[in-house]
């Protein structure tokens, strides 16, 4: 008792002392700083004789080397009746051994060396990486190259990967956010389109070990491979090593299946659609948006800045300040410009809010989207968005691995090597009028697709005021 009374007294004294503290450095709002200057390191690009593209950026600070790979493949190229094949191929390339070693031997050796190897095939690309202590590089690189070139696809590991994939499908409904993301993607690109579809128990069950072997053989070839190396190495020695491990890999031609056109919203005649997926939840997961530009669109930069202002910037965006801080409706709220690479991108706004405030949150979010079309952003908002972007630009060049990986991705997607620098130059020039014009052209709150995953009873009626309600059902593994 006496103890806590004493503490209270001390607190009171402390409070008084603290509140009279002047700020010895002056008003933080008035502080001025020199622009952030830095030099972007030169990255060397070499094409090996067999067509492999190599980026090299030495950085001797730590005795580590990271070798990254991007390979021209992806789930978009898998046959529609075997969705999941690409992901399985990537998984078993990592686990299923090589021509020289079993999967177990590889795991034992890599983990003993504290090396980290990843291989995965996503929707639009394949990626792999080796992160290893410099002293073990040649050994690690040899194993890594074998995994890319001569994976053995041991039957037991194929079976294990299939079991794991099926279990992951079974567990999909356990995450409401996951449901919302997948359903929204299907609404955007179409449930059967390569950019929208998802694996199912049936599609995965159909996949055989031979399918994996064939998928690998078809896409893993030097002409589809980009390598990037960052870390503690000398360029000539690294090139020698890469030639030794990858140089005798014979190139073969690859024909990439054509991506079917996306026929999603918004077209001028569509109106808003409201899609409700009934789940027994205490929150509604809202995803609202439409298809948008590809990353190479001249308006992409302005749209990215609009996204920052609307809901991209944490704490300071309009959606965060209003829907979260001022109205207290959501912990998670914001907007996102998903850049389109091979297909169109998506502009979306999202929130999670309790059932009874679903209408209020959604109405506010759509109002904010509409306001960007109705009136220019303020001078201060524009200046802030530019300053935040420009002053944090240095973080895009903070480490060698980051720089190399970005160059690889830019090359993979056919974007110019100086894309970020161009981004920067464009942002500097943007005016309020530019943003208004781009908002009017690319933001369509009147034609958005609304997805609400939540309790029917709570949300059906209020949401019907936004448009025609359609009920979705969650397919097994959906």
């Amino acid at each position, binding site marked *: 008792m006496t103890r806590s009374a004493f503490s209270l007294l001390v607190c009171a004294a402390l409070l008084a002392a603290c509140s009279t503290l002047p*700020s010895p*450095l002056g008003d933080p709002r008035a502080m001025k700083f020199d622009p952030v200057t830095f030099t972007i390191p030169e990255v060397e690009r070499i094409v090996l004789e067999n067509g492999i593209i190599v980026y090299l950026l030495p950085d001797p600070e730590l005795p580590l080397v990271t070798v990254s790979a991007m390979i021209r493949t992806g789930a978009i190229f898998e046959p529609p009746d075997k969705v999941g094949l690409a992901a399985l191929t990537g998984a078993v390339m990592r686990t299923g051994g090589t021509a020289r070693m079993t999967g177990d031997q590889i795991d034992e050796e890599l983990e*003993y060396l*504290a090396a980290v190897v990843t291989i995965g095939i996503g929707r639009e690309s394949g990626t792999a990486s080796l992160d290893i202590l410099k002293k073990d590089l040649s050994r690690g690189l040899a194993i890594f190259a074998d995994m890319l070139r001569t994976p053995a696809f041991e039957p037991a590991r194929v079976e294990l990967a299939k079991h794991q994939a099926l*279990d992951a499908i079974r567990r999909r409904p356990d995450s409401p956010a996951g449901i919302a993301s997948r359903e929204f993607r299907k609404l955007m690109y179409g449930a059967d389109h390569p950019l929208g579809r998802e694996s199912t128990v049936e599609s995965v069950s159909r996949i055989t070990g031979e399918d994996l072997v064939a998928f690998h053989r078809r896409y893993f070839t030097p002409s589809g491979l980009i390598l990037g190396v960052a870390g503690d190495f000398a360029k000539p020695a690294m090139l020698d090593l890469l030639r030794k491990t990858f140089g005798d890999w014979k190139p073969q031609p690859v024909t990439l299946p054509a991506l079917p056109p996306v026929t999603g919203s918004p077209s001028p005649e569509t109106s808003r659609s409201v899609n409700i997926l009934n789940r027994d939840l205490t929150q509604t997961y809202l995803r609202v948006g439409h298809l948008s530009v590809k990353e190479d669109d001249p308006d992409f930069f302005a749209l990215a800045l609009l996204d920052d202002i609307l809901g991209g910037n944490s*704490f300071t965006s309009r959606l965060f300040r209003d829907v979260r801080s001022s109205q207290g409706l959501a*912990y998670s709220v914001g907007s996102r410009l998903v850049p389109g690479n091979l297909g169109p991108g998506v502009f979306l706004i999202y929130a999670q809010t309790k059932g009874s405030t679903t209408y209020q949150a959604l109405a506010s979010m759509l109002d904010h989207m509409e306001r960007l079309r109705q009136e220019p952003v303020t001078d201060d908002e524009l200046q802030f968005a530019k*300053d935040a972007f420009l002053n944090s630009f*240095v973080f895009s060049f903070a480490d060698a691995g980051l720089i190399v990986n970005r160059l690889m991705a830019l090359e993979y997607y056919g974007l110019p090597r100086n894309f970020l620098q161009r981004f920067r130059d464009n942002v500097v020039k943007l005016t309020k009028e530019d943003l208004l014009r781009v908002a009017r052209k690319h933001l369509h709150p009147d034609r958005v697709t609304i997805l609400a995953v939540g309790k029917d009873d709570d949300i059906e009626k209020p949401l019907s005021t936004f448009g025609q309600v359609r009920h979705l059902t969650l397919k097994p593994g959906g």
Partner: protein
Amino acid sequence: MPRRVPAPLLSLLLLASLASAANLEERVVEHRLANGLTLLMMERHQAPIVAVNLTYKVGGVYEHNGITGVAHLYEHMAFKGTRTIGVTDAEKEKPLLEELDRLAEAIMAEMDKGPAADQTRMAALRKRFTEVEAQAQRFVVPSELATLYQRNGGVGLNATTGKDLTRYYLSFPSNRLPLWAALESDRMANSVLREFYKEKNVVLEERRQSTDNSPTGSLHEAFAAAAFMAHPYGLPVIGWPSDLQALSRAQTDAFFHAYYGPGNAVLSIVGDINPKKVLALVEQTFGRIPAGPPVPPVLTTEPPYAGERRVEVEFSAEPQLLIGYHKPSASHPDEDVFDVLEALLSEGRTARLYKRLVQEKQVAASIEAFSDYPGAQYPNLFVISGTPRAPHTAAEVEEAVYEELDRLKREPVSPRELEKILNQVDATLVRALRSDSGMASHLAYFQAINGDWRETFKRRDRTAKVTPDDIRRVAANYFTRSNRVVATLVKPRKREEEAKP
């Protein structure tokens, strides 16, 4: 090729450079201010940026039933500003905030009457509350702290609240250090809790998201509550919903004043800095803050008990399993053995649980082990978490886990397994240096939990000394039925029956 270094010599050189890179100790500058603030600095000039991690030795463990969630709620409030930041006129704002507190109290009192509550009075109070809240809002400069940081290139601004620690962090261009020092020292000294009642609703939404609608979140909450009868490690950091509803601004403010003094904080700064200049800057700003009162200790200790505890959570989701064994705090000599056990059982694809349960028996879809759950400062749990792979059951996974744990009691671990773990610890130390923010977090963590940032290196050396006998002894002592708690996630039985067509 003119100069070829002979291979053996080359590898020796490489080993030497690995050791020196891992030998970070010389690069850390430590300083303690007169008011008790601990400052850790490390120079790293890869880019003109700096990462800052300000760790307060406070978290959910300093709460009790009735005020659960207050540490985390305060963490949210810490972004709302001070007497000069986030507000246009703090003097005019103050009486409005105080009126809001009185109204909130009156509303709570009326609600407590239950069915006898005076609805007319309640409606009038609520109306007045909304009006005053709108008046107060007129003085708010929303997110001004974050605006100033982001305008100056700040990235990754955020904070986390755990059981033991609350951590505030961001990175920014290094020439903006004065801005950071002014803002952050102001936040340590002069925090004002505004938009309080709105933020409670935000936290309630966070709870719905992270716990109520999450099978994993729900299971962990019940698991910790079952494991700790008395100790506050059993309370949820996010707070019980009723406590969150009832928490007052005065309680939250008192919590701030009790635990946010400079003596209870560790400030870690890594990046493109000149330590001498940073020290002067920190002295000039944080140094002016008076030392806080001594922090009230956590009084409750978990009483010893014997007997397995089991808890079940019904949730419409696939099954999950948690197994925990009570163990001592991070300062106990057995801690290093538990670290080795964690790696041995679940680090990588060659780890024992993954190998046996996922690859060979295929009863589990995933399995992992983690030590120091849910915190490290006080006696805690060694936990194994798994998901059965259908059609296998949680019971089969549980059985298979026990078989592996029993094997640890019988068979000595091979020297190669121990070497592998040590290699991984060494590599992790080198990789930690890759990011300023990772290193800043690492140093502040060990300083706050163990009272010494060097613990990270001492631990490495102690790990090297762990023997197969140590592992057998610890497994036999702790991995017993009477020392464990088990939580399983199961489908709701009744509702599932009803749902069938």
